[in-house]
């Protein structure tokens, strides 16, 4: 039923136009019923987006190759899970997913806040409607998923790189993050349009920002794991433009989550916070543009299309329109308080923000420079990992250190005597760790050694915060240590959830430093019986195995693994030859040691007709801490997100007179 899908998208476009026009008029003229009607239009747009989604999903599951999209992205042999994930495997489907998530977020944000922040929501509606209009317009006019044709007997199949379990979760999570940043953007712009200078927009969007930021973070980590397993070059992050496209809005959102605390605690940085929200949202649009326009050559970009100019125009409207609005409202946004001392918690947040924004802009320049160079001079240029790694060290290492310093410094100002007392234990511990690592030979990589020393400092400062806090809580209210620990976290969820997220970032830093600065690699051609030594491992090639899977022929080189004379079983690496897609993919072999966190990573670069294979093997110390960091990150984010009844009561008191408080 392509007609129903098309009709649903046209209806979504019409509803979005209505939400913009009626919503803006209602907010301008103060018409209550019209404002509600415009909000209902966005709710209805969610319904029509669901209908369009169901139509496309049904076509995918039924292998209805009369849909061009279905024929181009699936085949009859494609397993059902990947057939469903083909929904976001192509351009039109992924744009529809954007629209679905956007209208879903919009509906939820409007319904949750429409009673408690009515005048603000009235202005938020046309902003959300404007973004919805853009994506609905693309889907109706430029890239429809409901184009039809005479059905061929079979489809072209799905890109083999996308036939990986991580691809079933990675893109939707990234989109939850990208699209989720629309909500804080819409509320920030809505607050400016409504001339509201209070913190209502922050209270109303805090959770939405955290959800989007968490989804973006987890999505990137899943994407890294996909690249590690599927792309088969021995790494997990290659500073690819499309990878950077997801990292940039995450970094900007991280800066915002920190700076918004300064506004809440001290009433400062109002202009800066608006700029950061605009930056995060614009970068999420830029990320989608990079992934979907085909403007950059990337292992993550699976499309060439004509949506690029439309996206660029929309990004320009968003950026220049938002900046003009912020500029127009500058007199309202001036802060009455000032930074009291350069040695204070808010100052460390400010340094953190400057470093995060500098890192984001550096990455943006690295991504944009080749595009601009080619557009202006017609010559292609590549910005390699060396550029990014340099700036990652320049900005990332101080950021790591600040994660340890921040929690130890008091708000407003701190005396040197206090700092000396607070820093003594973590600094001493970090120094000791650094010296021990140096003695163990970690000095072969100076950035790695610095990263480990700083990581030790951060972990010690977090541990100190938890232990001192628990002791103080127990002294105040008695009870057992676990009860005091639990009460400490329960009463200060944002603070201690944040520390757990910091611990996750430290695990990530340790994993990245260990696996990139201290890895070992070895490669050679092997015939059956030959061995390859890499690190402490000896790999002995036993021979090739071939088997038929649902939609591919799998060929694997089987290698026996020994360490210190002990047999550790086998590891298999090889290739998959996909029948319908007529493509071959690399399938790496990974043996993880969960005690040491180390991976033995094997790539069969070439499988030769004479039975020999060209093997490249890596030993990657501590790489599994990266994936563990993901779990800790989610735990910290959940603690931070968990509703706090005390805070709800405080907000209810603040917004005294309203029947319900703004729901953060």
């Amino acid at each position, binding site marked *: 039923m392509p*007609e129903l899908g098309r009709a649903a998208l046209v209806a979504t476009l019409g509803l979005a136009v209505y939400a913009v026009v009626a919503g803006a008029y209602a907010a301008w003229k103060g018409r209550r019923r*019209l404002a509600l009607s415009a909000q*209902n239009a966005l709710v209805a747009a969610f319904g029509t987006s669901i209908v369009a989604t169901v139509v496309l999903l049904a076509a995918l599951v039924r292998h209805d190759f009369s849909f061009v999209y279905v024929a181009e992205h699936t085949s009859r042999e494609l397993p059902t899970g990947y057939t469903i994930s083909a929904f976001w495997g192509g351009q039109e489907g992924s744009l529809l997913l954007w629209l679905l998530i956007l209208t879903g977020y919009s509906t939820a944000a409007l319904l949750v806040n429409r009673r408690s922040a009515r005048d603000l929501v009235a202005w938020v509606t046309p902003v959300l409607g404007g973004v919805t209009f853009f994506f609905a317009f693309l889907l109706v006019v430029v890239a429809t998923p409901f184009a039809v044709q005479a059905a061929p007997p079979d489809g072209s199949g799905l890109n083999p790189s996308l036939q990986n379990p991580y691809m079933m979760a990675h893109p939707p999570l990234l989109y939850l993050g990208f699209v989720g940043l629309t909500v804080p953007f819409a509320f920030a712009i809505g607050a400016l349009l409504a001339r509201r200078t209070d913190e209502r927009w922050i209270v109303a969007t805090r959770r939405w920002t955290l959800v989007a930021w968490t989804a973006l973070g987890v999505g990137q980590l899943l994407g890294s794991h996909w690249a590690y397993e599927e792309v088969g070059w021995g790494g997990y992050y290659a500073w690819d433009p499309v990878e950077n496209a997801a990292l940039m809005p995450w970094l900007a959102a991280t800066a915002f989550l920190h700076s918004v605390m300064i506004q809440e*605690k001290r009433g400062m940085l109002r202009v800066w916070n608006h700029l950061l929200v605009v930056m995060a949202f614009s970068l999420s649009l830029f990320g989608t543009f990079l992934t979907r326009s085909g403007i950059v050559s990337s292992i993550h970009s699976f499309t060439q299309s004509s949506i690029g100019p439309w996206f660029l125009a929309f990004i320009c409207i968003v950026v220049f329109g938002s900046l003009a609005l912020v500029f127009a409202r500058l007199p309202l946004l001036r802060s009455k308080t000032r930074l009291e001392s350069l040695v204070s918690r808010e100052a460390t947040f400010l340094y953190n923000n400057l470093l995060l924004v500098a890192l984001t802009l550096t990455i943006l320049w690295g991504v944009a420079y080749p595009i601009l160079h080619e557009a202006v001079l017609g010559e292609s240029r590549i910005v390699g990992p060396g550029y990014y790694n340099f700036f990652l060290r320049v900005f990332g290492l101080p950021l790591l250190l600040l994660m340890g310093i921040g929690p130890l410094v008091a708000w*407003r100002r701190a*005396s040197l005597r206090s700092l000396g*007392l607070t820093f003594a234990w973590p600094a001493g511990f970090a120094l000791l760790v650094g010296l021990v690592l140096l003695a163990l030979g970690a000095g072969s990589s100076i950035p790695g050694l610095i990263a480990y020393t700083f990581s030790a400092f951060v972990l010690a400062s977090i541990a100190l915060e938890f232990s001192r806090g628990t002791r*103080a809580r127990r002294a105040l209210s008695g009870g057992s240590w676990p009860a005091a620990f639990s009460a400490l976290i329960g009463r200060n969820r944002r603070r201690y959830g944040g520390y757990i997220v910091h611990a996750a970032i430290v695990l990530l830093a340790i994993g990245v430093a260990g696996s990139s600065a201290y890895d070992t690699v070895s490669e050679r051609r092997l015939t059956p019986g030959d061995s390859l030594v890499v690190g402490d491992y000896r790999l002995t090639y036993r021979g090739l195995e071939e088997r038929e899977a649902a939609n591919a022929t799998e060929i694997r080189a089987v290698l026996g693994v020994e360490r210190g004379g002990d047999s550790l079983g086998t590891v298999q690496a090889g290739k998959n030859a996909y029948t319908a897609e007529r493509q071959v993919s690399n399938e790496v072999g990974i043996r993880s040691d969960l005690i040491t966190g180390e991976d033995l990573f094997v790539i069969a670069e070439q499988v030769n007709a004479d039975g020999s294979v060209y093997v490249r093997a890596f030993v990657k110390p501590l790489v599994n801490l990266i994936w563990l960091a993901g779990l800790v990150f989610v735990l910290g984010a959940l603690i931070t997100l968990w509703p706090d009844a005390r805070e709800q009561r405080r907000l209810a008191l603040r917004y005294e007179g309203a029947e319900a408080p703004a729901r953060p």
Partner: protein
Amino acid sequence: MSIALVLGALLAAACVVLVALPYLREPQAERDVLEEPSELDRRRLELAEARDRALAALKELELDHRTGKVSDEDYRALVGPLRREAAEALRALEPRAGASGRVKVERPG
């Protein structure tokens, strides 16, 4: 084709009803005005935020002092101004709320 048409028509009708719902529920609304906070309401909200900031800062300061992050000397220097800030915000809130009867920042409908 015909099923798609019927479903499309139903979808369009549902959308129209949903969009028109505020007018269907209140065809003759007595007051069709989107209430916006007055200057007094905005000022009161600013003061409430200032009060919450000062109280939260006091709470943080107490915790930091108890955990040893803030020395006695720093504590004494910081706690006075914070208490004054909180007291000023509380004082400023009281008469204003009284002056306007019961100030409502927003009224849910």
